[in-house]
């Protein structure tokens, strides 16, 4: 496989996963706001923080209000992480490797981009927002399904899986980092009733609420939620699951010794750290280490194959 093609496949999968995760994040936030007491100023700032776009955001916008954040995160051409920008990049990437991915997948990617472009106003009204973002999520799931079900599980597919899971791991760590820190102090002291909602929000941001309920079955609490999201090997959006997927896909590639080594190191670090027991400060440091690990894996892939 051509190096240029491998790189395009990897980034195509990253962009698609990014668009989907961002859509999930905004949807959850919209819902969460309805549940929290009005005196809690959770608002929209965490969304910008999760994606580390604070500086970029304030270049263009004055206030972190709903309208600005939605604009920034969904349609802003200047934001490389906006849904529309991600899908545009995904589409351009898909176009240059149209002969590699199944035709139906290309058609779906193309249709999704067109849908998102043509209906952007739906993101701004609360009533239509959910359906609009949900369509993005479902379309991405369709694309994943098409790839899993109709694409040869060869090296090309391995690069896509690596891209998808690096992006997912990156997003998971960001969500856990920001969401677990937000307002924690305020809520714990004054409104114990809402602490539950806070952690429910974390679970929901990662589409983990229902599965957590099935697996854990106790009252929602910090330690169990963190354990579940970071180290549950069965839940497909947990951090350890993503890293195992990367490890498995990398093994299918030629000359993968270095990359496998780096990935395994990150995985072992995660499993040995017992992150759930860490205090907030230490948890933040741990997450930083994980992100650095992901950056290392990404660099190694770049060096070995692209």
């Amino acid at each position, binding site marked *: *496989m*051509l*190096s*240029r*093609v*491998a790189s395009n496949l990897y980034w195509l999968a990253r962009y698609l996963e990014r668009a989907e995760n961002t859509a999930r994040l905004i949807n959850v936030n919209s819902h969460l706001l309805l549940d929290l007491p009005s005196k809690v100023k959770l608002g929209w700032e965490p969304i910008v923080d999760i994606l580390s776009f604070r500086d970029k955001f304030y270049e263009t916008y004055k206030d972190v209000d709903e309208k600005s954040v939605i604009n920034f995160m969904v349609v802003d051409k200047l934001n490389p992480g906006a849904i529309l920008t991600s899908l545009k990049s995904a589409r*351009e990437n898909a*176009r*240059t*490797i*149209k*002969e*590699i991915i199944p*035709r139906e997948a*290309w*058609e779906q990617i*193309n*249709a999704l981009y*067109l849908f998102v472009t043509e209906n952007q106003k739906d993101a701004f009204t609360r009533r239509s927002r959910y359906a609009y973002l949900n369509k993005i999520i479902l379309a991405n799931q369709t694309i994943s399904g098409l790839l899993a079900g109709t694409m040869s599980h060869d*090296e090309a597919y391995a690069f896509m899986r690596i891209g998808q899971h690096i992006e997912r791991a990156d997003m998971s760590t960001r969500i856990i980092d920001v969401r677990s820190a937000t307002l924690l102090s305020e809520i714990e002291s004054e409104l114990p009733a809402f602490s539950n909602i806070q952690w429910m929000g974390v679970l929901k941001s990662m589409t983990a609420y229902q599965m957590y309920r099935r697996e854990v079955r106790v009252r929602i609490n910090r330690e169990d939620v963190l354990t579940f999201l970071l180290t549950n090997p069965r839940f497909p959006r947990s951090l350890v699951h993503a890293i195992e997927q990367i490890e498995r896909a990398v093994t299918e*590639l*030629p*000359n993968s010794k270095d990359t496998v080594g780096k990935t395994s190191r990150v995985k072992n670090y995660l499993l040995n750290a017992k992150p759930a027991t860490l205090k907030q400060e230490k948890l933040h440091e741990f997450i930083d280490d994980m992100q650095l690990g992901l950056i290392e894996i990404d660099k190694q892939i770049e060096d*070995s*194959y692209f």
Partner: protein
Amino acid sequence: MAIRWGSYKVTNLYDELVEKAGKPRDHAKHLCEYLRALSDKEINELKAASDSAIHTMGVTFRVYHQEEGSIDRAWPFDIVPRLINAKEWSGIEKGLKQRIKALNMFIDDLYNDQNIIKDGVFPASMLNKSKNFLQECRGFSPANGVWANICGSDLVRDNQGKVYVLEDNLRVPSGVSYMLENRQVMKRVFPEMFQKYNILPVDDYPSQLYDMLAEMSPRKIEEPEIVVMTPGIYNSAYFEHAYLAQQMGAELVEGPDLVVEDDDCVYMRTINGLSRVDVIYRRIDDWFIDPEVFAPDSLLGVPGLIRAWKAGNVGLANAPGSGVADDKVVYAYVPKIIEYYLKEEAILANVPTYKCNDKAEREYVLENIADMVVKPANESGGYGMLIGPHATAEEHEKFRKLIKADPRNYVAQPMLTLSTAPTMVDTRVEPRHLDLRPFILSGKDIKVTTGGLTRVALEKGSMVVNSSQGGGSKDTWIVDMEEE
């Protein structure tokens, strides 16, 4: 009821489907009846279905704009197909095979013994001024002596129903992917017509192309490495490059993906390191293909490619230099070329062509420029032409000057009134002029597509069918009427 064949006027025209108002040609009867029975609502639904199929399939082409860079446009498609009787088609097919066979012999002769010049059939002066004659290729002969492995010839019919070859595209002809996609769209939109007619399939072109390319491999191995080489995503035919690569299961490569090593072999950069390439279907013009030999600043090409090709280590289709026969002036000699190499009469007619470097013919052209079509020798895509009857006196004068300044670079032809076919205008049909571009593959043997790409001028009375100039296209049905 929307379509009334009784009011479909074909006075002074030859229409592909309709003999005269209210009377469809035999092979178009079913289709005309079917269309007549549609309500406005149904017609709009069919049009919407075809638009949506094209939209979803992502069938696009690029148009260059001076101000806006280039833009992707949805492929403009007309839902009324163009039908040709299989019996008539088999005659045309014979003519195309004869023509390309002779042209390939001609190119091979020019680069080697030049017998046709020695025998006084083709003037040496023509060659000296040919932009596409590459000195680098002298004394070389590619596999099977074939230079133009893929040819796209433009056929037209005049208002008497006679078929002419308008030009032969022997460099990097494009359009075949749209022929294939048009058929896909029609199968989605008109499935019931495919049961009514015995429509010959077009789908095996990619596998024929693959077989022909595989034949050219210098290494005789089970699975030679075949690549399609594209200038990249911003080229107007990129859609086609990607499409053909995908259909053949070949790698789609860009110049920087390839490298020629010290052993004069071509390799591609892969995730496993360098990997040998056997055959390159290149969709890049000669001039940009190898900065060592041609345009030194070309970023699209591969340094050393010509070296590797001449060492016999890689197959190139089409061979560099095949454009020498793609010249509008050479075109005028094709009937003689066929006679010289094959000792046969040309089966397909040439449009009478006046060569401006011949004094008497030039005088005639300058005199009658208002009634003629003037073409530059080496342009493609309909650029740089004068259509006399549709131009102003100033434009006529401008072209007279151009011709006088560089007579070798111009030919002129009488203005043909191209044949028409019913084309959708809102929910009615009106006649629109069209042409046909079949594609011919030449390897050990010669294969012609079943039909080809029908291009149609969408403006009333216009004869310009190029998609770059606002033309559209139709599916082309070669229908076998033997069983009726």
